[in-house]
Structure formats: C-alpha cells, structure tokens
C-alpha cells in the first residue's frame, strides 16, 4: 500500500482524495466502508501534504550546447 501510494502523482492523490470525499458526502456508504474511506483519505491527505512540502526537490536545469542539462541560475543580463 505504501509503495503504491508513494508512486501516486499529486494529481492522482488529489483526485482519489476528492473521490473519497464525494463518496462519503454522497452518504450511501456503509459505515465500515466510510471508516476505510476516511483512513485512506487521511493517508492521501498526508501524502499530498508531503508532496506539497517537498520544496527542496525542485530543480531548474538548462540544456547546454553539448546537449546536457546543467543547473540553471537566473541571469540578470539581457
């Protein structure tokens, strides 16, 4: 479950979370299912939060003349 979850994209996780919320809000879910949905939902919520918080993974790169990507710093000169 954990492996599978970590492979989810943020979009997928968000979509699944939305789906769970909608299912729950629809109201015709058996209680056990509802609790399962809630637990799954909270896991997804946590996952989304982690993904949103993973700022340090951000990467800027630029393709150089040798066809390789190298780290990119914003250049101020025009």
């Amino acid at each position: 479950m954990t492996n599978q979850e970590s492979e989810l994209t943020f979009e997928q996780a968000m979509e699944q979370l939305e789906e769970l919320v909608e299912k729950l809000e629809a109201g015709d879910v058996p209680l056990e299912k509802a609790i399962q949905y809630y637990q799954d939902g909270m896991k997804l919520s946590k996952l989304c939060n982690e993904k949103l918080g993973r700022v340090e993974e951000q990467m800027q790169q630029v393709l150089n003349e040798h066809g390789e990507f190298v780290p990119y710093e914003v250049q101020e000169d025009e």
Partner: protein
Amino acid sequence: MNGRYLTVSALTKYIKRKLSHDPHLKEVWLRGEISNFKLHSRGHMYLSIKDEKSRIQAVMFAGNNRKLKFAPENGMNVLIRGEINVYEPMGNYQLYIQDMQPDGIGALYLAFEQLKEKLQREGLFDDSSKKELPSYPEHIGVITSQTGAAVRDILTTIKRRYPIVKVSIIPVLVQGNSAAASVDKAIRYANEQLDCDVLIVGRGGGSIEDLWSFNEELVARAIHSSLIPIISAVGHETDTTISDFVADVRAATPTGAAEVAVPSLKELSEQLKLTTQRLTRAVTVKRAEANERLTRLRKSYAFKYPEQLMKQKEQDLDRVLEQLSKSIHDLQKQKNDWLTHINKRLNQQHTASDVQVSRKQLSKLTKQLTGNFNMQFRIKKDQFHTVLDKLTLVNPLDIMKRGYAIPYTQGGNVLKSVNQTKTGGLLTVKVQDGQLYCTVNEIEEDES
C-alpha cells in the same frame, strides 16, 4: 421603346449582383491613406481611402473596429482587408473594412493574415484539437531565450507559486532567421527526449519583426503536432501571434504563462486542507448518522420486542407454574381421594372378616391379659403385705419400743448367756434410742 429603360434600383441591383459575384472584390487587400474620417455615435466608422490619384468610400462597422489596436486618423497610412459592395440607396460602391492595420509592416502583416487564414481553414486553431493542461505538472519545459526577461519572469513566478515542480529550460533563438527552426527543433526535442507534462513556448515583448518567428508556419506546425500541451507566451498583452492561436493555451505574458502552468502551492495547501476537513466532516456526519440510526432502532418496537417478549414469557411461565402446582395439588388430592376411597372399599371388604375379628380377639385377649395381670398383682401385693405385717411383728426395734434392750459383747455378739461375759466385763447395751457402755458388776446364774 419604353421597354429599354431600366429603373435605377434595377440597375443598382444588377451592379450589386455583378460586384458580389466577383471573387476579387470579395476579399480585397488594400493599402492607402485615411481621409474624411468620421466616427459615428453608434460606433461605426466612415472614411475614405485614397492615394495620389483615387479615393474610395469606406465603412468599418463597430463589430469590426472594436478589435483595432490603433486609433485611425486622417493622413494615416493603413493596410486594409475588406470587401467591395454597393450601398443601394446611394447607388455607390464602397469598401466594407473588416480589418485595418497601420502600414509599415505591410508584407509581414499580409503574410500573417494569409497564414492565419490558411491554418484556420486546416483546423489548427480548433478547440477540439486543444490539449488540456495538467492540473499539477511535475516537469515543465521552458522553450525560450536563456537570457531574456521572459525566462526570468517564468522562473520567478513558478518558484513563487509552485516551487515543487521541476523546470527544464531548452534555450532557443527567439528572433532572427534561424529562430523558427530553433523553436521547432526544441519542441520536437522536448517531445522526444523529455518527460515534460507541459511546455511554455515564447519570449518577451518586442516589435512585430522581433516576434515574427512565432508567426511562422514551421513553429505553428511544431506547436500543433506537439503531444505535450503547450502554453504560448509571446510578447505582451496586445501582441497576438500565430503561435498563440495554435497553442493549447495562450498567455498574455511569460509571467501569465507561468501562472497558467502551475497552481499556487498556497491555494493548493488551502484546498487540500479544505478537502481533508470535508473528509473528516463527512465521516463524522456518517458516524453521527449511524449512531442516531442505531439509537432510533434501539428505541424502536422491533428492538424492544425481545425484551417485551421475555417479559411476556416470564408472565407465561408464572402462570404455567401456577397451573402446574395446582394440577399437582389436584392430582394429589384426586389420588388421595381415590386412595381413601379404595381404602374404604378395602376396609369394607376386610372388616367383616380377618381384621375386625383379629382386632376384637386382640382386644379381648388384651383385656383378659390385663385382668389376669391385675389379679395376680393384687394377690402378690396382698401376700407382700401379709409378709410385711409378720415382719413388723418380729421387728426387734418394735420390741425395744416396748422396753427391751439388747446387750452385745466386746466381740459384737448378742449376749445370750451369762457365760459369755465375767465380772468387770464390758458390754454394749442397745436401747431404742441409743446404747449404753456398761461394766458387769455381778453375775448371777439362774437356777434350773
């Protein structure tokens, strides 16, 4: 002769029809100078277009002139696209202007318009061929000049809004002769080599010549055939290029492109928070509902039923026990009665014979026994009294009452003869109420 004369309106109609059927007059590209410009209160523009030798009446209706990016005025040289037709009430032909540009970029403008029409006809601008942008991109490819303001605007905006996305810059020439080829190559490279989920293609503002590569067919086709959705960001708000029409999403500026490309992390966090709250609320509501339902059910008759049933059964049991007890009692009584009855009958049958006879006999015998015993007892008792009387008669003590005494020797024997003692001998004389210890003073023997 009269049949040869036409009415004015018939002639005018005829001319109008002639002009309408001429394909060259359907779409006219015209260069000239504005004169007699008049803006009608309802928004329509009336003007003449002239050159050194001729002039033509023209009108540009409000629906068309609203899109103009400049204010026409007398003496201004313009490039016009329009249609020639006849205004019947005045019987004059005039130019109905559809689009108008300031002159000076004439050839480029025509090329732009012609390419735009061609690509539009081919369906390159159709909404149906537009791809949807990912809501949460993971990898953005930026195809622009490495050193322009555009790349800086894009990167700072992305960093501010959504710093968790990966950004790859594919540097291209954005102006000059090889710019279009460079952009085309970069778009194809991104599609073949990179796992980008969205591309931003563009450059900052400039003259129409500066932006021209984004009006070229090569770039337009590259954008159209890209499998990765493309946001175009060419020039500034007022600049529109062919690329903008073909792109899946058009942004007014590079900053705008970055804003379209990525969500705001802050808003996203907020949204996630709200969704999570909804999740919790939904499950809480669910639980409360279930709880309420349970409570309701517990209170319901159906749920109470077993309890009441039990109470009823308890009562039933009591009643049955009572009945049982009564039955046993009745049965016992019945059996008893029956036994008594049987006994009675039994007795009736046997009294006459053995028992009664035996009992009578026993009674008789007992009476006899008792009678005999009593008689024997009285006899024995009488005998005893007789013996006792005789005994009393010989009782020495009774004799001593009459004054007799009994002397005993030292040895304790009754003194019956004088020979049993001697003078000075000691005797004990017992009388009725005690004894005397005596000494024999003198002995006198009876003469015989």
